[in-house]
């Protein structure tokens, strides 16, 4: 049982944990260790997710949004790769498992292995003078990339890693910028959602908040693959309302037209209206936006229709689920250095708490 943690310290721990899609055990263990005492029950999940339940009082929920069961969902996995084969020279050929852009891989440090142990490596590419001039402008094909783990032969490499092992970026978690107000690290998509929801669970426990409806906190697997663990989680939990806590690509960088920026750092959680796989429940979404307004919590509407998340599967589960999504704006998503603003993390956590507070009955 972990104590004396903050959202940020937990985010650092989670960010540095090894957890590409399909290999989330270490992340799940960390999360379980932080939340076990703050929930009534953790449901078994064969997909490997952590599904934690906080029992509601069963009283009538005041207000227009009255869930029977509310699912708060985030995903534990991060973009990564799998070792596909090992060359004679002891280099690893890989299969990508996400929308990682090969241009951001070359020269990066990585971890390769399993949830239990990993070895260091780097993404190698041909030196520039060996690349044909016509190919210099093109993004590399994943087949041309390799990971160098410092093995002198296939045999030596096989003592360190195996075909089927997983890999992700190795990347420090650091605070930087004005007033140390920004952080950078890997896998903030979506360990940030995980850290926020862990923190929310603790607040509900410590402040003795008694929601009328059951709250289910779902830490899901394999979102980045699209083979969402959220699908089976939602089937099991059978919620009538769900909120997905995510990270979304912030395009507030030079050269992007204003209307294509999606979300801007420092402006609060980005609430989705529609993306490529979900049309979010409008009354529920409006209610969340109104809650933010009334409590003076910064938040923004996610501009532009792009991306998709676990809501894709959750909203179509069983007889249908009313879904909303709140995303942390993150620059350079799916690279080794995601950048987010600390104050957005605070805003998102406040908004989640404000939502839960509104699902409570009269104070005793």
């Amino acid at each position, binding site marked *: 049982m972990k104590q004396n943690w903050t959202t940020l310290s937990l985010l650092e721990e989670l960010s540095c944990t090894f957890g590409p899609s399909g290999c989330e055990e270490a992340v799940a263990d960390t999360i379980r260790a932080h939340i076990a005492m703050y929930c009534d029950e953790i449901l078994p999940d064969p997909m490997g997710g952590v599904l934690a339940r906080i029992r509601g009082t069963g009283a009538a929920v005041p207000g227009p949004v009255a869930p029977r069961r509310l699912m708060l969902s985030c995903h534990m996995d991060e973009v990564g790769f799998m070792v596909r084969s090992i060359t004679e020279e002891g280099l690893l050929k890989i299969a990508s498992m996400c929308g990682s852009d090969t241009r951001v891989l070359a020269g990066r440090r990585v971890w390769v292995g399993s949830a239990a142990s990993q070895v260091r490596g780097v993404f190698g590419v041909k030196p520039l003078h060996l690349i044909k001039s016509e190919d210099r402008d093109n993004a590399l094909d994943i087949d041309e990339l390799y990971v160098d783990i410092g093995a002198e032969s296939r045999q030596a490499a096989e003592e360190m890693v195996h075909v089927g092992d997983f890999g992700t970026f190795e990347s420090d978690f650091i605070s930087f910028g004005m007033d140390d107000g920004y952080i950078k690290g890997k896998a903030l998509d979506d360990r940030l959602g995980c850290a926020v929801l862990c923190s929310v669970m603790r607040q509900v426990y410590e402040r003795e908040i008694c929601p009328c409806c059951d709250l289910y906190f779902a830490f899901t697997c394999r979102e980045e693959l699209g083979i969402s663990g959220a699908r089976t989680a939602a089937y099991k939990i059978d919620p*009538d309302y769900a909120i997905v806590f995510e990270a979304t690509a912030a395009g507030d960088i030079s050269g992007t037209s*204003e*209307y*294509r920026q999606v979300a801007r750092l420092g402006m609060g959680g980005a609430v989705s*209206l*529609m993306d490529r*796989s979900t*049309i979010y*429940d*409008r009354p529920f979404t409006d209610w969340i936006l109104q809650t933010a307004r009334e409590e003076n919590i910064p938040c923004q*509407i996610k*501009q*532009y*229709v792009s991306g998709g998340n676990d809501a894709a599967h959750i*909203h*179509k*589960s*069983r*007889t*249908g*689920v*009313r879904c909303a999504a709140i995303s942390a704006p993150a620059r350079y998503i799916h690279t080794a250095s995601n950048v987010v603003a600390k104050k957005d993390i605070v805003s998102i956590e406040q908004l989640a708490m404000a939502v839960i507070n509104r699902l409570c009955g009269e104070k005793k």
Partner: protein
Amino acid sequence: MRTILKKLLQIPSVSGREARLGEYIAGEMQPYFDTVETDALGNVLCRKRGEGKKLLFCAHMDEIGFIVTFIEEDGYLRCAPVGGIDFHAAAYSKVVFENGRYGVLIPEEGTKPEDYKGDAFVVDIGAKSREAASCLVKVGDCFALESSMVSLAGGRICGHPLDDKLGCAILMSAAGDAASFQNDITFVFSVQEEVGLRGARTAAFQAEPDFGIAVDVTLTGDTKGAKPMAVSLGKGAAIKLQDKSVICDGYLAEKMARIAEEKGISYQKEILTAGGSDTAALQLAGAGCRAGCVSIPLRYCHSGVEMADSKDIQACRDLICAIAQTKF
């Protein structure tokens, strides 16, 4: 039927924003069914309990359209398509917002036709600034091409969006014969078909039918330059065998064809090589069901000038009633 269709065309229902239309349809269907309910996604499920097998008929309420994503400094709106918008067919059209406001959909100056897609388009609602525009519409508001319907020669009608308000009108009209239905019958008016058959799936999960029959439009092979396809306007109800999303249940398709023959209803077999339908979602929901589709032949689908034939519409209605009246 025409009166019903006209009424449906007046109520905007871009995917995800079907609530108003759902409310209207639910009210109209109340007298004919034992229960009428709306589920979490907005599907309207109308059930008439009965002996024997559970049959589900499903027409989708939603239409393709657009969603406002951004309001520019100078009052122009940016938008994204909702469903399969053909920007060539939509360029320079009048559009209507849910609140009745008008605008026009215009490509940016100098955009080549081959670059016609969402980002190249703006909506001009006549507002001179972001402030002025923000008073009239908000990010997240939806709009669609202005609806219309005119009669053409030979009993044909032309308008928009006949996909799939025609299917809804046919089911609503068929509901008038509900007293004669055998079986346990559910009519579903589904949501979000145009964005990925989303509503039919949750509706079918709830209804758990033995047989699921979509009622939707299909393309025809009788337009100029059309791909080979054995469906023509005016040749009757189309019984779907497959489309890109589904291979229909052979037993059900055969049974529907036999019923049509027995009742003297003109029909044709449909194999659609582009596009999907709620049939696929019905088939795979829950533990699955035998799925098929009664299709209404439609020319120029997803344009502002979709065209259908009254004889086909009548044949589809007759076939649906005949199926519902046949003991399964």
